[in-house]
């Protein structure tokens, strides 16, 4: 039995099938990356796991606790959401709160920690992502990379059983990508079970334990970075990798 088991996840938008009975196992401490062409449901998959989208079917088991992803029960929804934390493409920091308050918010309101305890935890997390010098800056005072690092601190402060990252560097200027990737690598090395959607293939290669290639709502290929990038077995995967110049030893026909 895996630490996290996703079974039969289905999602449609109208008649459009986005996710078609997706099954996924994640072990504790594993970093799983989802790659694939755009529009294949990578983000939707993540968003179904914390019910930002309501799937048509599917269950998730976290450390033995099973949840029905189609539940309408507000309390079950909130409990499920507390299992995971999400880092968004657009950072989504709360704009009228400064860095410290953004990280403290969930600790105080959801985890019901005391003032001092929440402050201590938030400071430690911000220190970890290298934002300890900008505790009282509001999001609008921060660069994209800095905002994303605060967002990562906010997600990690909740001590999630599963860290969801939805293209965390896609909205950043190229020169700011590095600092965020370093932060994510650090979080991964610290043993956070992570499900990551990204287009940073070199990063995936060096950080992920397992890579999932998703196309048309189905898991087409799944394996270690070596298997996926080194010996891709699937034709579609080869094509995809060739397009993004990642197929090792491939000859390019221009």
């Amino acid at each position, binding site marked *: 039995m895996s630490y996290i088991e996703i079974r039969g996840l289905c999602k449609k938008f109208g008649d459009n099938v986005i996710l078609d009975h997706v099954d996924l196992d994640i072990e504790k401490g594993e970093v799983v990356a989802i790659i694939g062409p755009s529009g294949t449901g990578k983000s939707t998959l993540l968003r179904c796991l914390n019910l930002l989208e309501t799937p048509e079917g599917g269950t998730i088991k976290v450390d033995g606790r099973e949840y029905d992803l189609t539940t309408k029960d*507000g309390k079950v929804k909130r409990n499920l959401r507390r299992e995971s934390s999400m880092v968004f493409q657009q950072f989504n*920091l*709360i*704009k*009228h709160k400064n860095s410290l308050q953004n990280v403290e918010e*969930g600790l105080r309101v*959801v985890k019901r920690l005391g003032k001092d305890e929440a402050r201590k935890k938030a400071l430690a997390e911000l220190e970890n992502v290298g934002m300890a010098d900008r505790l009282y800056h509001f999001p609008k005072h921060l660069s994209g990379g800095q905002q994303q690092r605060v967002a990562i601190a906010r997600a990690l402060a909740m001590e999630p059983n599963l860290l969801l990252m939805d293209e965390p560097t896609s909205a950043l200027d190229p020169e700011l990508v590095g600092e965020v990737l370093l932060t994510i690598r650090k979080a991964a090395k610290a043993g956070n079970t992570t499900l990551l959607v990204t287009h940073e293939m070199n990063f995936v290669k060096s950080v992920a334990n397992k890579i999932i290639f998703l196309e048309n709502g189905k898991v087409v290929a799944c394996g270690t970075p070596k298997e996926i990038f080194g010996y891709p077995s699937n034709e579609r995967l080869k094509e995809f990798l060739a397009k993004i110049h990642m197929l090792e030893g491939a000859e390019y026909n221009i």
Partner: protein
Amino acid sequence: MKLFDIKLVFSQIPTILSALPITIELTIIATLIGYLLGLVLALVKIHKTPVLRQIAVAYISIIRGTPILVQLYITYYGIPLMLKHHNLTYGTNYNINAIPAIVFAIIALGLNQSAFDAEVIRASIQSVDKGQVEAAKTLGMSGGQILRRVILPQAVVVALPSLGNSLISLIKGTSLAFTVAVVDLTAEGRILAGRNFRYFEVYCSLAIIYWVITVVLENMFKILENKFSIPDQPPVIAPEKVSGGVVK
């Protein structure tokens, strides 16, 4: 006898101001009703609650589509009628004459405000970026917590200028309360003029009073706006703390 007694314009202001508490009471209570009911109406419209939403839409349309004077008369004559009907049907014994006139004015003005505020509040709530709401949801916050801690604090900043406007128009709207026998500033002035026939002077005094109140309110809202807005300049970073964006 002088044609225009300018000294009287100022000297009678203190006498007229004896009715200021009534105007303030009317304004504050009607504003609170307006904001609270407006918030409820806005939430009903946003969440598209069936039935309630249609009622809210019709209510807002009717209130915004009728003059406030007509609304004052409708509450003034309508509420006693409703109570009479209730007394006759259920054998209750409400004393209609015991209801102070100000209650009718408060209800009419409050309901009127709510319709206008509802639209302002709805627009400002919808202006808050959805991503932040999603982030709050993923933290595990409940709907009420998200509304109170994420949406409303930001919506208020957006709504403040418009809510200030609506409060200013309400202050002046209270001058119609004399039509339902409430002795507010305007009524007090008319009573005064009824004695000395200096109508022009009284209305000049009233104009000054309302204008001063409005200026005070405008400035209060300016101060509030400043208080709620996030400073443009980031706080200064102590030099020894600068990490230069390096992740340790």
